[in-house]
């Protein structure tokens, strides 16, 4: 592969020849080689540390079995968060003092306190409130206890949705405000009501701005589902992190268990990042947000090219 024209043997020549040869290798390939090297080094390290691969093979199906609960919690959480973010954002830009006050309090509190504290508040503190209330007012109907005594997974989903919803309120608000004032005015001038204007004109345009960061939030939430395990989930409905802890603690195989679960999260994230990137390309293609002056450009079509 080396250039034979160079016959000199000094160090400078050798360096030149090397860099010439290196320049022919695509940059991406070199990066991939570095990745492979990192994995080889890590593999050697684990082999030296007596990494128990057969144990991992035994346990993988048990841990992966928790994947559906991880996904339930993440999907439920993001659905709740999106609903809250739409309401929160409309409240944040509303002229109504009640809507503005409630949404302001919501965002401030749930962004101002740690997620794990919110989880424990919902899981542990809420039942206490209920029991104390029952003590003070004995006539309360029985079904009420099902409202404040929640399954760990339900409490976790609620906390994730409330917490992420507060952050996403700001994303949604920015998205709505990115739609130019002229659009709202054009809708007003046609005689649309506020609801029609939002539903038909403003929100569809805002979603183009909102969808990509919402995908990011979902991926982040996917990993934060691990926190639900701190609520002491029962064995049957344990998500993947909880399961890895159970398996790892029992056999003192924490290294293997944690690496396994880290790998699962990583793979999940990679899959969703791939889809998110596709989605992002689709919503941003062929679109100019506001400027009416840029009107004589050729139409932009989706390129369909995947940027690595």
């Amino acid at each position: 592969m080396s250039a034979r024209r160079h016959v000199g043997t000094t160090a400078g020549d050798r360096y030149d020849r090397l860099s010439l040869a290196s320049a022919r290798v695509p940059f991406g390939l070199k990066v991939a080689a570095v990745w492979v090297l990192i994995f080889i080094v890590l593999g050697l390290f684990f082999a030296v540390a007596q990494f128990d691969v057969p144990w991992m093979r035994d346990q993988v199906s048990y841990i992966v079995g928790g994947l559906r609960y991880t996904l339930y919690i993440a999907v439920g959480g993001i659905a709740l968060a999106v609903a809250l973010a739409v309401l929160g954002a409309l409240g944040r830009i509303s002229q109504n003092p009640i809507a503005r006050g409630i949404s302001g309090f919501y965002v401030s509190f749930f962004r101002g306190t740690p997620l794990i504290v919110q989880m424990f508040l919902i899981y542990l503190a809420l039942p206490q409130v209920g029991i104390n209330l029952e003590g003070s007012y004995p006539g309360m109907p029985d079904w009420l206890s099902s409202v404040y005594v929640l399954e760990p997974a339900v409490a976790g989903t609620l906390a994730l949705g409330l917490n992420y919803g507060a952050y996403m309120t700001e994303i949604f608000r920015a998205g709505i405000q990115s739609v130019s004032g002229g659009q709202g005015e054009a809708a007003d001038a046609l005689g649309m009501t506020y609801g029609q204007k939002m539903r038909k004109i403003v929100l569809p345009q805002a979603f183009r701005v909102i969808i990509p960061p919402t995908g990011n939030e979902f991926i982040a939430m996917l990993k934060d589902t691990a926190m639900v395990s701190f609520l002491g989930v029962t064995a049957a409905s344990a998500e993947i992190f909880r399961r890895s802890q159970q398996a790892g603690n029992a056999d003192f195989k924490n290294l293997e268990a944690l690496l396994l679960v880290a790998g699962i999260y990583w793979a999940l994230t990679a899959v969703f990042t791939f889809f998110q990137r596709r989605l992002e390309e689709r919503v941003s293609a062929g679109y100019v947000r506001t400027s009416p002056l840029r009107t004589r450009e050729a139409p932009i079509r989706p390129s369909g090219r995947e940027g690595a």
Partner: protein
Amino acid sequence: MTSTEAVVRVEGLHKRFGPLEVLKGVDLTLHPGEVVVIFGRSGSGKSTLLRCINFLEEPTVGTIEVDGIRLAGGGHRTKAKREQIRQLRIRAGMVSQDFNLFPHLTALQNVCEGPLTVLGKSGADSAVIGRELLEVVGLPEKSDQYPIQLSGGQQQRVAIARALAMNPRIMLFDEPTSALDPELIGEVLAVIRRLATEIGMTMLVVTHEMGFAREVASRMVFCHEGEIIEQGSPAEVIGDPQRVETRRFLDAVL
């Protein structure tokens, strides 16, 4: 309270932005079929006057009447007032300087949006109206294009069709050609001219196009520092302006 023979009646209109008084008592009446051109220096209040008529700006003081719907400016926008404003806007089509087509909808969808959403017509009926009006503005072949795929002149013609789709009693044009490249102005003015000559649409046009005004206007109104200080036929106002301000403005633009 319905006034006979007036499509628009503006009475004692004042508009203040903070300490700045942009309109200082404007009265203006438009009869059916009239084409009134408002002109004047920038900052003279002509656009604000137009925007007060369909309550995109709330008049500080004064009364606006459009097709029998009479509303006083100022005060809180109660639910009842918001509904009246909406009814008024349905009767007054507005075309703005910046077109403001809905970028996520095709040309046809833009035109159909009003009948479909606001008037509650069926999709089929709206499409018939939409295609007919794209024909009127000379863009039947562009119905499936998105706004970004259209030139500025074409976008403005679609915006005119969108306003016409509500079957308004009056069309308000707020400097409809001032954001356009010179070679695209003609096609938009031609559409507006056709509305006057073929449909007899009542129109209120803010514009600097004096040639167009001379040809199409039934009356010209000169706005100066928040007041209408001169009005009359194009021949009177352009040919023999009575006020020195009008004369000075015309000397500058002609």
